[in-house]
């Protein structure tokens, strides 16, 4: 194959054939430089290290999120020689690598989604407490799944949990999680709450939960969401987009359902409170009745005293009309032997015994003669 004479186009085709045969695709790690987006569709950038730099070309759909020069990227792509613009790598996928770059990329994405309002407090919906049904998105093999179920069942019973068994790290995680969220949302009888959870891990392990796709899927879920990722200090973007976040899978279960023992204790307290209220009501009613009884007594007594005073007055008045007054004026009372007053001479006969009352003496007399006038 020495001394080949080719046209330019023939040469380009030959090089591309050779490259495609030798390196159908490669993953190259390097620092992002000269990043720019054209027509909202095409992405151009350089990937470089201390000594070399290569051009890369892709579309915005392959972006893991907003990027910035200086970020370390792992770019998977196909090396190509472009007929006009020279050598470049046609990007298939790109991911930030290394703790610093992952955080940087996440920070950029967070700023973008924050500006869009995805994390606004007003968007947060309350979760049903306790829910009747839960859609659980996690790996069936994980400790997160076991911890969540253990705490959930220990605290409360009777909740239907539907598991979407997904990979929670690595490349397939993003589309698996997004797919599970969408599937639950499309159910005719969707669960009352979606729980997306996994245990702690390195920034790279947890990367799926800070991707734009997962974060948007969580934010778009019509079913209220609870996202609980690991024990890390840093919060993933999916957690920020969720209606509620929890620190661990166990914590998620604790937030979702009350502790039945605590509820029972509360009932006891409430019962005691109710009893107390009732006895207070009784004693205040009793007090009221006592007061009323006293008032009744006072009123009656008052009535009796008034009656008694009136009677005394009447008695004195009557005394003023006593026959004694007449006796004092010199009249005398004439009584028959049986004590009845003599009102008429017709009542008397000669010889009748009479009693005569004077003011200061009582006399006995015998009728000598009766002359009717």
């Amino acid at each position, binding site marked *: 194959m020495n001394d080949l004479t080719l046209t330019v186009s023939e040469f380009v085709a030959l090089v591309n054939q050779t490259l495609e045969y030798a390196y159908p695709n490669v993953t190259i790690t390097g620092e992002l430089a000269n990043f720019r987006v054209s027509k909202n569709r095409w992405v151009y950038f350089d990937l470089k290290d201390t000594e070399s730099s290569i051009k890369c070309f892709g579309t915005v759909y392959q972006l893991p999120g907003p990027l910035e020069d200086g970020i370390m990227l792992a770019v998977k792509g196909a090396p190509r020689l472009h007929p006009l613009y020279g050598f470049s790598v046609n990007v298939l996928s790109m991911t930030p690598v290394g703790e610093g770059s992952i955080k940087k990329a996440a920070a950029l994405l967070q700023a973008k989604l924050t500006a869009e309002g995805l994390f606004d407090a007003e968007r947060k919906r309350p979760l049903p407490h306790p829910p009747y049904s839960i859609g659980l998105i996690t790996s069936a093999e994980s400790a997160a799944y076991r911890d969540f179920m253990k705490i959930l069942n220990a605290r409360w019973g009777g909740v239907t949990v539907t598991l979407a068994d997904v990979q929670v790290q690595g490349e397939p995680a993003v589309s698996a999680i997004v797919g599970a969220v969408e599937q639950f949302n499309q159910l005719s009888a969707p669960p009352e709450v979606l729980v997306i959870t996994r245990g702690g891990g390195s920034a790279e392990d947890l990367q799926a939960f800070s991707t734009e796709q997962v974060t948007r899927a969580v934010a778009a879920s019509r079913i209220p969401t609870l996202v609980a990722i690991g024990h890390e200090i840093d919060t993933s973007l999916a957690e920020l987009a969720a209606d509620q976040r929890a620190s661990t899978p166990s914590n998620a279960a604790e937030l979702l359902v009350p502790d039945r023992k605590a509820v029972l204790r509360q009932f006891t307290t409430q019962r005691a409170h109710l009893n107390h209220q009732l006895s207070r009501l009784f004693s205040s009613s009793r007090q009221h009745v*006592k007061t009323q*009884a006293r008032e009744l*007594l006072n009123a*009656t*007594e008052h009535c*009796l005293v008034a*009656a*008694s005073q*009136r*009677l005394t007055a*009447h*008695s004195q*008045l*009557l005394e003023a*009309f*006593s*026959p004694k007054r*007449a006796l004092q004026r010199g*009249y005398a*009372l004439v009584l028959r032997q049986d004590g009845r*007053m003599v*009102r008429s001479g017709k009542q008397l006969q000669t010889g009748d015994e009479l009693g005569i009352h004077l003011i200061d003496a009582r006399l006995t007399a015998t009728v000598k003669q009766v002359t009717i006038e």
Partner: protein
Amino acid sequence: MADTNYQTLNAELEGILAKLQDPDIEVDEAVVLYEQGVKLIAKLEKHLTQAENKLTKLKQNA
């Protein structure tokens, strides 16, 4: 007459007192009225005493 209530007895007594205040009243009638008045007062006093006793009993029970 023992069954008659306080109000009726009192009204009767007041009637007697009114009659006794008539300046033209006969001595005999005055005496009769007086006797009736004394009897009524005795009855009224009895009524009042009974009422007071009843009240005292109720007070003790309260």
